[in-house]
């Protein structure tokens, strides 16, 4: 239970809001009506995330943290841009996008997880940790969809709200990309 709680706190940590920003970008075209897609997309993110987290924590995949951070900001920008270009229509590519980009985000947790799980049974802690992350993600997405739903009910045009949120996400992710460009690129 401790590791479920740890995973939950980890994803809901406001200081690391880049994961939240990605979830906001990911769920832009979704509403409560598409609840099946919502589950698929979020679960695909968790699968990708869990897989690379395990691989990074066991040093099977080794990527420098500055490249991971850069990659995370790129995934946020690309996801928001993808949905904007498709005018927020549902895409069959959604779960795949989620799976691959989730993999990039998982690399960011690798070193942290390997440090905390060394003393405990590594894989025994891995499952509950990722369940916690999944629960945290579902919570964030449900809150987002709830905001969309309420906004619609009070007369806000969903398309306008989505455009506005996309503007915010694109701006923040662009700034993140610029701040995180690895020195090796120059």
């Amino acid at each position: 239970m401790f590791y479920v709680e740890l995973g939950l706190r980890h994803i809901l940590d406001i200081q690391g809001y880049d994961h939240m920003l990605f979830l906001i970008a990911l769920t832009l075209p979704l509403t409560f009506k598409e609840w099946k897609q919502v589950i698929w997309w979020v679960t695909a993110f968790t699968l990708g995330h869990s897989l690379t987290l395990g691989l990074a924590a066991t040093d099977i995949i080794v990527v420098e943290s500055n490249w991971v951070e850069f990659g995370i900001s790129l995934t946020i920008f690309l996801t928001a841009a993808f949905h904007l270009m498709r005018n927020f229509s549902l895409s069959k590519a959604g779960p795949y996008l989620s799976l691959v980009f989730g993999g990039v985000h998982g690399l960011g947790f690798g070193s942290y997880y390997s440090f905390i799980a060394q003393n405990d049974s590594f894989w025994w802690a891995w499952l509950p940790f990722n369940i916690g992350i999944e629960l945290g993600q579902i919570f964030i997405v449900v809150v987002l969809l709830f905001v969309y739903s309420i906004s619609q009910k009070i007369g806000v045009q969903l398309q306008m709200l989505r455009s506005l949120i996309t503007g915010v996400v694109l701006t923040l992710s662009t700034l993140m990309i610029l701040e995180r460009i690895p020195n090796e690129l120059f």
Partner: protein
Amino acid sequence: MKKLVFILILTCFGLAGFTTKVKHEFYVSVTDIYVDAQKAQINGVVKCFPDDWERAMNALLSHQLERYVQLDSATQDSLHRVYLKKHFNVKVGQQPIALTFSGTVTGPDEVYLLFEGPMEMPFEAYKKDWNVSHTLLADIYPSQENIVILHYSGQKYTSSCREGNNYEFNHSF
């Protein structure tokens, strides 16, 4: 449409002043506490990141001109002893365990602080009423989380001391 573009531009300019420095930094330590019936001893190890630990030690030396890395290992160990005693306390059944620092092992990415204490009660008494207070590095990093794993008679319990629980928890096996 023009209105929408105007709102977007305004939002973008507004956000340009917003910091995107995402501090996804984790301040964490992991402590194992064992009840060793054979040695009639409570022992264990605290693991933390070397740079975090060095910062805490330098804070202890703030009134002096010396830096932690300049000290010899005996002086470093005496600092470790003082710090650990102040920040790490364990009680079982209201009785404090007299834990003493017993050495340091430094790895490439971790510092291990070893500790031990006498087992002054019968082994069975350590089954319940544990109270662990662990404020290691919390004086330096408010978001510090000290994960603690209690080991007793083949059983294991994991919890953590953090700001949310006043860096303290209780447990009975």
